[in-house]
């Protein structure tokens, strides 16, 4: 059984309704690394937020492990592009937030056992810091004292320490410079191979999708309706160098066809007139 099932999901915003996603159906197997690729505004992040449970579809439903998923919870870790860390906590406290919240709740600090457990979490958090390529000294810095890449490393550690079954990443590396982005891509692939967590990674960058995913789902808008899945292909791993241009052509071809069609639809009334 698929871990994530998206069943006939449609989403529209505003009045009159402006369709964003139209009849999306998708199955994601446990342990896969799926990249959702598409141009800005095509509804990639909406699809991710639906799986996260932060948004509800107008029609259709999202199932995780066979059960309907309607609110964000520990099953899904989340790494957004921005605001991924709590600014009032050091990197270490950001990472230990999850275990603290799960085990002790709101008034946990009043219980004596909390402080003994906190020592253990901090030790584990240090291990995650090192795993994500940061120095132990960075643990005591606040997010605004860290670079964008370091912040995303902490955000990944923060999400992974809770051992979620699914990790949802929304353009998580888009704001980084090319060098840092390549490092982060290598890091997330290594962590995925080590943990086997199912990853749903949203990006608009074809190369990034190809270098990361075991499967790529392309979303594109069709006419004035919402976006649909225009391509869904498995990427062979390891991916041969010679395969890449063919895959890029295929993925970019889908997007270009959509663009050409939209342009024609836009120009048609003008030409007729």
């Amino acid at each position, binding site marked *: 059984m698929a871990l994530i099932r998206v069943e006939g999901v449609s989403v529209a915003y505003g009045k009159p309704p402006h369709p964003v996603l139209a009849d999306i159906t998708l199955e994601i197997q446990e342990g896969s690394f799926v990249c959702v690729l598409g141009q800005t505004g095509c509804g990639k992040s909406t699809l991710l937020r639906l799986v996260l449970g932060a948004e509800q579809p107008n029609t259709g439903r999202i199932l995780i492990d066979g059960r309907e998923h309607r609110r964000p919870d520990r099953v899904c870790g989340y790494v957004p592009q921005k605001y*991924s860390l*709590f*600014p009032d906590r050091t990197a270490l406290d950001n990472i230990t937030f999850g275990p603290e*919240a799960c085990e002790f709740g*709101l008034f946990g600090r009043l219980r004596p056992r909390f402080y003994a457990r906190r020592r253990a979490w901090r030790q584990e958090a240090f291990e995650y810091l090192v795993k994500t390529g940061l120095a132990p000294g960075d643990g005591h810095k*606040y997010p605004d004292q860290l670079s964008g890449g370091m912040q995303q490393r902490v955000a990944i550690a923060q*999400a992974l320490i809770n051992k*979620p079954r699914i990790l949802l990443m929304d353009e998580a590396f888009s704001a980084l410079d090319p060098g840092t982005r390549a490092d982060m891509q290598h890091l997330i692939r290594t962590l995925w191979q080590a943990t086997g967590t199912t990853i749903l990674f949203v990006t608009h960058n074809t190369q990034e999708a190809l270098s990361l995913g075991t499967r790529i789902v392309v979303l594109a808008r069709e006419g004035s309706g919402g976006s649909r899945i225009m391509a869904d292909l498995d990427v062979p791993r390891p991916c041969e160098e010679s395969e890449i241009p063919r895959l890029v052509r295929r993925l970019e071809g889908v997007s270009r066809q959509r663009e050409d069609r939209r342009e024609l639809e836009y120009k048609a009334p003008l030409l007729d007139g």
Partner: protein
Amino acid sequence: MAFGLIHAKPGRGSGALLSWMLFAVGIGLYIYTAAERHRANPDDRIVPTVAQMARGMYDAVLQPPEGVEAQGGNRFFSGMLWKDTEATSRRFLLSMALLIPAVILGLHMGLFPYVGVFFLRFVLFFDKIVALSLLPILFIVFGIDELSKIMLIVIGVTPTVILDTFNLTRSVPEEQVVKAFTLGASDFAVAYRVVLRQIMPRVLNSIRLNLKAVMLFLFAGEMIASTDGLAYRIALLRRHMGMDVIIPYVLWVALLLFAVDFGMRRLNRALHPWFREA
């Protein structure tokens, strides 16, 4: 040369000189005016000289208020100034404590939609009521003792604090709230351990900005119906044209407010080392 003027950086010396200049000019002008008026009329009571004010304040600090017997021990603590400061501070601190529920309400309104819908319209309307216009009603309903003065401050300041906290809560990025849920936090853990912690320095800044409003309503209440307090004393001395004490009292109130504001700023920095003020 707008570029040059905008990017100019005053040096340490010139910065200090410029920032104190208006104080020096004000004090100089006052001393000059007082001297001129006293040369024309030695009995002038409108602009007292510095010596007269010093004498007036000396009495205010060491003499007990009228109708109160001088107690043994330290004369300062049984003096008029101390007694008045004590009475006003007590009311002021009580009013500040009543702002805590306002912050909690604003937080819940911003975070829990049903609480927001239930209270928002009412608070927005309440915020538009001119608190001072309610003063007679408050005196009729609550009498002329402490409660009416505290209620005046509550009515005057809490809607602003509630709405400020509400807006600050709404400004916390949704990603942070969603993220906290994915890390296993409950609704109340998100409210108090994520959102409140993040907005707290801004809430304290908002309360700092409202300090003057708190004092304004407190003074209005004290001037109209009170038997002690700094504002009561100023109103009382006005009847006797006691400018030699009124002016130092006004400066004392300003100094107290400055000290509270300074203390809150330092506290804010100490409690929230991560917070960078814009």
